[in-house]
């Protein structure tokens, strides 16, 4: 796993030696010139800067990711969208609930900064979409964190201990997997109430950890047979230390990739729930709820469905491309980069 430094660092001495006064000395052979040009005539490797610079695994992963064009473009687009959501209060021209009856039902225009138009109640749709992004962000962040922690813990314990522990945990995982997601979500929403994005996020998180648990279990099953795990045991490390200090870092690739995918799924599911009226409740704007609001009048006011819809598509596409890029980047067997 070595590579030479970028071309810029490779300093070959000039082939034809030139004297200090600029007069070219004509050597008999080019080789002679090379040797002649070296100050001491030795230590060629050192002089030419061809020493191999070592890189950590992360440096390689970063390199591969940066070279993944689609992922990089997606990262930039997503960053813009997410930053817009995070700083919604700074960039939106209006509050998400402020009504402007003079301009209700306004098509997208730069006049009065109604970039995405207004709805029938005269609320600025650009502001509502940006605040909707913020809601999605909140939900996605919590869902991803909580489900990743749960999935990693369950998968790690199951894979490390195997045997009956593994059996119980995995059958439980299977059980969660067999639950029809949307039905459970709707029921849960009806029972414990929704409206609060955080509550919605926790409901989603409790359903979304299963795939990761299986992935982590698989990694741990293979990692526990590695000799360095046996060596760590022989060195007297305890179970927890072996699991989380020795094994988890080796399984971080699939976990990160899965987490990015969960972000996308969480945003989509939250939108779907809200669209069905079981997710975020008004006046909190949510991308799904916005589409629902605009649905009735979509024939006359196309922008009410289009902009939140496009935003969702854009976010989820970007996340999936980034996930692709991460998967390729974190795969240590892959040396070449894909565009």
């Amino acid at each position, binding site marked *: *796993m070595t590579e030479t430094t970028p071309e810029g660092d490779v300093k070959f001495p000039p082939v034809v030696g030139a004297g200090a006064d600029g007069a070219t000395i004509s050597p008999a052979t080019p080789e002679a010139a090379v040797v002649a040009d070296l100050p001491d005539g030795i230590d060629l490797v050192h002089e030419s800067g061809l020493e191999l610079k*070592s890189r*950590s*695994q992360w440096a390689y992963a970063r390199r591969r990711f940066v070279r993944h064009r689609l992922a990089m473009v997606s990262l930039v687009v997503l960053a813009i969208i997410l930053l817009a959501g995070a700083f919604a209060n700074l960039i939106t021209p209006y509050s998400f609930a402020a009504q402007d009856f003079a301009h209700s039902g306004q098509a997208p225009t730069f006049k009065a900064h109604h970039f995405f138009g207004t709805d029938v109640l005269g609320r600025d749709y650009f502001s509502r979409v940006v605040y909707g992004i913020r809601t999605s962000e909140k939900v996605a962040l919590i869902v991803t964190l909580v489900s990743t922690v749960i999935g990693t813990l369950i998968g790690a314990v199951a894979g490390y201990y195997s045997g009956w522990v593994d059996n119980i945990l995995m059958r439980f995982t299977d059980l969660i997997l067999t639950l029809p997601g949307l039905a459970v979500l709707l029921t849960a929403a009806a029972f414990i109430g929704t409206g609060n994005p955080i509550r919605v996020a926790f409901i989603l998180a409790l359903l979304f950890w299963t795939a990761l648990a299986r992935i982590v279990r698989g990694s741990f099953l293979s990692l526990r047979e*590695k*000799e*360095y795990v*046996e*060596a*760590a*045991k*022989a*060195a*007297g*490390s*305890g179970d927890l*230390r072996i699991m989380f*200090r*020795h094994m988890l*870092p*080796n399984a*971080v690739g699939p976990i990160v990739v899965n987490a990015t995918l969960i972000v996308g799924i969480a945003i989509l599911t939250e939108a779907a729930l809200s669209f069905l009226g079981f997710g975020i409740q008004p006046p909190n704007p949510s991308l799904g709820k916005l589409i629902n609001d605009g649905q009735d009048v979509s024939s006359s006011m196309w922008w009410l469905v289009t902009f939140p819809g496009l935003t969702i598509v854009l976010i989820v596409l970007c996340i999936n491309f980034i996930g692709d890029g991460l998967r390729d980047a974190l795969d240590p067997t892959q040396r070449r980069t894909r565009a």
Partner: protein
Amino acid sequence: MPEPILSIRDLVVEFATEDGVVHAVDGVTYDVFPGETLGIVGESGSGKSVSQLAILGLIPQPPGRILRGEAEFEGKDLLKMSKKDLRRLRGGQVAMVFQDPMTSLNPVLKIGHQIAEAIQAHQDDVGDKAAKARTIALLELVGVPNPDRRYDQYPHEFSGGMRQRAMIAMAIANDPKLLIADEPTTALDVTIQAQILETLKTAQEESHAATILITHDLGLIAELADRVVVMYAGKVVELTDVQTLFAAPRHPYTVGLMDSLPRLTVDEEWLRPIPGQPPSLISRPPGCAFHPRCFLSQGRTRCRTEEPPLRVIGPDGHLSACHFAEELVGQSSKLIDEPVAGASS
């Protein structure tokens, strides 16, 4: 004679597999004395490593199972110890060097951190700075150049030999009383092997640890061991000091091993291997497990019917498990032209 630091008595380890019960270690008994190097030789599957892993609680159970036996380390039976106590012991008073340094270090953790962690796992009072200083000193001791810089490098930035040095540094990090080296040079180049041997010697001198050297390399045994245990099919077949073993082996299997070494003094075209295959550990041959391959047995009934006990057959507690060990007196040196130290089996 001083008190042994480790005494293994009648250790029996089995593995339940789909094909039947594998008798990996079958009634093994030997002592390790403070400061000595005990070599354990035998071919693959003779139970050399398993006996060590078993006493440290490192074999997976199931399928593995320790049927009976004792392994007294400083007066305490390791096999009866709680998991927690055993864990404290491992890497502390008893440390291991594994066979393959390419896979025994965690690829995502810095070398220095792995060693420092081993120190801090056993010595709670050592702070981060002290652990780092000790690690760098250890790396220097085992001959890793630029230990300051190497401390922050990852295993993939180390060569095989350097990694094994790092493993040795980790093993002696907590001043173990017993160092178990499981084929420490097998995965390395011949040139690097010699260096690692030196490093092992240094490590031993530094830590004053008794060492168990598990290998199938008789050259390594000749180089490092004080006493030697020869294992065959899960049993000890011969136990003696290293000079006697090479000069006057008293078990036909040992004689066969010596005989199969290439000689430097004679122009040979063919090596002389021991005929046949090592026995299946699921269905061992009746009587002496070695009799189907033995040149001494020659079809004698006793070899087939009666299992030979390990008995004293010579001075200084020379033990052999052969009914007819005495027949090798004065003969073994003729069978083997000369003991060849330094050659590999």
